Structure formats: C-alpha cells, structure tokens
C-alpha cells in the first residue's frame, strides 16, 4: 500500500476533524538472528476510528503494536502518535494510550477494584476523579457486585471486561486491543464487542485492534489492513476490500426463456444452466429487483433470487494466502512464529 509521506512542515492543514491518531512510516523490525518480523510497513489511523490489523499468525501484527506502544524499538522507521514522535518521547506517548495485550493481563491476586486503582495510579489519573471513574467503570461493565473479589475467581469474560474497563478509568485517546475476544464464549464476546463500541462512540477513543475473527473485524472496524509476512498486503474499508475480491453473486432460479446475456449496467452472466443463472454484479441488493424486472420483461417467471456476497474471509484468504505462496515458505513462517514466541508473544 502506498501512503503519502507526511513530511514535517511545521504546521499541517487540519482537515475537518480528520487528524491522525497514528502515523507509521517505513516501519521495520529485524530480531536478533535476522528474522524480519515487520518489513517497511506504513499506515495511518485516523482519530476516532476503529482500525483493524489482521493477518495470519506471525504476520507481524503484535510486533507492530509493541513498537507503536513503545514497548519495543523498531530497527527502522518513524511512528507518530497524535503528532508526538514515539521514539524520542515514549513516556508522553504512553500517557495517551491504553494497551490490552492478547494474554489476560489483569492481576489475579488483586481484587477487580484494586486492579483498576493500581493502574489508574500508574497512569496518573487525578486523585479526585479516580474513585468516581473506577466505580462508574465497574458499574457500566457489570462488575460492581464482584469488585472486591479476587480477579483469579473471575470468568475469562469478566477479566476481559475488567481490562477494557481500565480504559474507561484511564481515558486513553488511543486504545490497543490485541485479540480482544480470543477464548471467549459467544455471549461474553458480544458484550466485549459492545463495550469496545461504547468506548469508541461515547468517549471518542480511537481503537486499534488485531483479530483473527473476520466477522468481528467486519462488524467493528471502520478501516482495516491485512498484514502478511511482515508487510501490509492490502488496506481499506471492509466494504471496499470485499468489493475488491469480486462483486456480489445473484443466483436466479426461473422457468421460461432465460437470456444468455443481460445489459452490462445490471451485471454479467457467469453461467446459465437448466433454469439456474448466476449473475455477477456490483451492488447485489439493488440489482435484485432490476434483474427480476428485466428477466420477467423477457417472459421468464422468476421463482427465487438469492444473493451471496464476498466476506472478509475471502479477502483474507486472497491477500494472506497469496503472499504466503508468493514469497513465503513454510520454513519462513515457522521461524517467524518461533522468534515471535521467543521474544515474548
């Protein structure tokens, strides 16, 4: 993907509310031993959006997040978080962001309340706001009645909610979520997704998340990027990406005479066999009545029309899989994963 290089010109023209939360350019991370975990990656996250970073295991997502959160240093490249250089002022950057790692990172030996209290202190949340925010967060996330229980007795879903509640106490401008719904049952997963959306809508928190769940990414993300072998394979809004792997497919079952072709503004006929016709089109829902009208105008009797759309899975398979076959071997993938594990998740 190509991103216009943001040069430091002193002042940047503010376009209506579209300032940037994250600007990453030319990011490269080579681990000792030569594994290139991230290879010249550039992307931007706009303020107020939910941005997804997807990709197969070992694609470099977690490494990228670690570098933006200033936990790890890049081999090359530049990172700006709300305009602040993450390499020269890591502590200023860390004050603006919250991080929920992939593994559950709440402290099981403390109560839910204490977990929020300690991390609020470590984030220097004002003393006079601290307690009110903690109680609000516990209430909102349905943890108030268990606030004084040790977290090790919580369920996985409650622990995850506590971690996200932390963000409500600390009010970071940018929240990183690494696989937020991994290992959760469907109900807890829905709750977590709902809370993420609330944070984004009600508090304007910009969110950068990674996930393997394509349906979740489609549902939550305003924009996303797919990483593969340390590079960004493609990026854009979920809708655009789905369109890019091919349009919608209409399957028409009809009796009577079916044409071999239809006007191009309706789409194109992919196959027409024994009263079943497959039509490739751009905007499937709108095409249904028009195609039906057209076919019935020609004397056919349409019995049913079904629409199938490409999913993000198709996008993922195309870009992630494609680049694996192109330039990656099983051995590369394995060594990337191994070193990712060795250097911490």
């Amino acid at each position: 993907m190509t991103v216009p290089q943001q040069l430091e010109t002193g002042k940047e023209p503010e376009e209506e509310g579209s300032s940037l939360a994250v600007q990453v350019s030319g990011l490269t991370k080579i681990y000792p031993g030569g594994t290139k975990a991230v290879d010249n990656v550039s992307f931007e996250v706009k303020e107020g959006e939910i941005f997804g970073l997807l990709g197969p295991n070992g694609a470099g997502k977690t490494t990228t997040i670690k570098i933006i959160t200033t936990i790890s240093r890049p081999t090359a490249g530049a990172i700006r978080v709300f305009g602040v250089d993450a390499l020269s002022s890591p502590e200023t950057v860390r004050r603006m962001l919250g991080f929920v790692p992939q593994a559950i990172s709440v402290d099981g030996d403390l109560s839910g309340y204490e977990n929020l209290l300690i991390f609020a202190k470590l984030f220097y949340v004002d003393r006079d706001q601290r307690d009110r925010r903690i109680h609000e967060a516990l209430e909102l996330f349905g943890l108030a009645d268990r606030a004084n229980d040790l977290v090790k007795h919580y369920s996985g879903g409650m622990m995850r909610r506590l971690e996200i509640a932390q963000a409500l106490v600390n009010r970071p401008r940018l929240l990183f979520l690494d696989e937020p719904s991994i290992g959760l049952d469907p109900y807890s997963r829905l709750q977590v997704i709902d809370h993420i959306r609330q944070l984004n809508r009600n508090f304007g928190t910009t969110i950068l998340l990674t996930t393997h769940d394509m349906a979740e990414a489609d549902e939550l993300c305003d924009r996303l990027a797919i990483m593969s072998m340390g590079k960004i394979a493609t990026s854009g809004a979920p809708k655009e990406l789905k369109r890019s792997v091919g349009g919608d497919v209409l399957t028409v079952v009809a009796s009577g005479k079916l044409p071999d072709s239809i006007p191009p503004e309706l789409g194109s006929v992919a196959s027409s066999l024994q009263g079943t016709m497959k039509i490739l089109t751009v905007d499937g829902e709108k095409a249904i009545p028009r195609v039906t009208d057209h076919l019935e105008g020609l004397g056919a009797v349409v019995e049913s029309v079904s629409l199938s759309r490409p999913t993000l899975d198709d996008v993922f398979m195309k870009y992630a899989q494609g680049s694996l076959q192109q330039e990656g071997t099983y051995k590369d993938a394995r060594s990337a994963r191994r070193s990712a594990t060795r250097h911490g998740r």
Partner: protein
Amino acid sequence: MSSLQRSVSSAFTIAEMEARKLRHDSTELWMRTVQPALWLLVFGEVFNAIRGLNLGGFSYIQYIAPGVLAQSVLFIAIFYGITIVWERDVGLLTKLLSTPSPRISVVVGKALAAGVRGIFQGIMIFALALIIGVNLRFDPLDIAGVLLVSVLFAMCFASLSMTLASFLKTRDRMMGIGQVITMPLFFASNAIYPISLMPAWLQTVSVYNPLSYVVDGMRAMLLTGDYSGLPVDILVIFAFTTAFILSASVLLKRLIE
C-alpha cells in the same frame, strides 16, 4: 507533577500493588520464617555448645542471629527475578511497561516490595530471639537501623535478580541461578562463622561479598554496639543497590523484546 515526582509515586504504587497481594494472601511470608527459625533453633542451639570459636564474648546463637536474618532476606530477594519472569509470561509486565510510568519505577517498586518482605523477616527474627531468649540489643534505634539495612539489602538483591532475569528469561533458569548465587554468598560471608577462620582465598572473596557488609552492619547494631564500620557497610550496600537498580532498569526490556 514533575518527572521525579511521577517516578517516585509510580514506584510506591508498584510496591503498594505487591503489599496488597501480601495482604490478600500472606501464607508465603509465614512459610519463609521456617528456615531462619531452623537455623536459630537447631543449628544455633547445637553449635552453642562449641566454645572453641572466638566470637568476641558472644554465644554462638547470638553470633549467628544477624547472619540468619541477612540470609533469609537474601533468599527472599533473589527470587524476585522469578516473579518478574512469571509476570512477563502472563502478560502483566507488558502491561506495566505500557503505562506512562518510567521503567526505573517498576524496578524500584518491585525492589521496595522485596524490602517490605525483608522488614517482616526482621520482625520475625526479633520475635524468635525474644521467645528463645537470645540476648540482642533491643534498642529502638538499633531495631530501626537493622530493618533499614534489611530493606536496602532486599532491594539490592531483588534488583540483581531482575537484572539476571533479563538475561536468563525463563523461570527454570532463574530457580537454578537462585541456588547458584545464594549458597556461595552465604558460605563466603561472616554470617555463620568469623572471616578470620576462613582460608586466605575465601577471605579475599568475602571482601567483595555484599552479604559480609550487611551482616557486619547488622551485627554492630544487634550485638556489639560498635558503629565504627557502619558507614562503610551502608555505603557499600547502597552502591551495589544503585548499580543493580540501574542495570535492571536498562535491561528489563530484554524480557519482552
């Protein structure tokens, strides 16, 4: 808040985190008193019968009381590296390091927490000494001094342990290194016998052993009341502590890279 205020406040917050955990479950603290109790009650009592040692007029059990305290603090502190590796494994360390708090605060906070445990050990040794009738100097200032040295010493070895953890990186290796470090330090010190009894080469080693200075300082406050060596003792421990805190702060990120 200035950045110094923030560092100090964060260090105390990390220590508070550990203290709160101890309040929820203090089983480990109590179990940690078994070993020093054995040293005093069994080893001390048995060797009390031997009069051949020149201990400056003190009984053997009096003589080893400061050594046993120093040793028990050492054993607690040296395992802090395992704690930090465990926190890395469960993802807590990553989260701690993603807060705006400076890294040195994380190290100092953990070291202070080791100090809290050190104080507990100190109190337990005093209590034991009272119960079994070991005559120590129970002067409030001396007690305060001994507890202070315990805190400093716990911080010293907790930070050394965290420094080592950033190289060794796994819990198993840290368990091993704990054994490798503690016993030689213990035997190459004046904890359970006077340095003058050691062979010449071991005497040289003991000069570079921080444990000797700790025991010497504690012994001055608990037994002899001769404070002439105390400034040097405290200065040496302080220097070691500062060096290890700085090295751990710089190297800690190796654990999560």
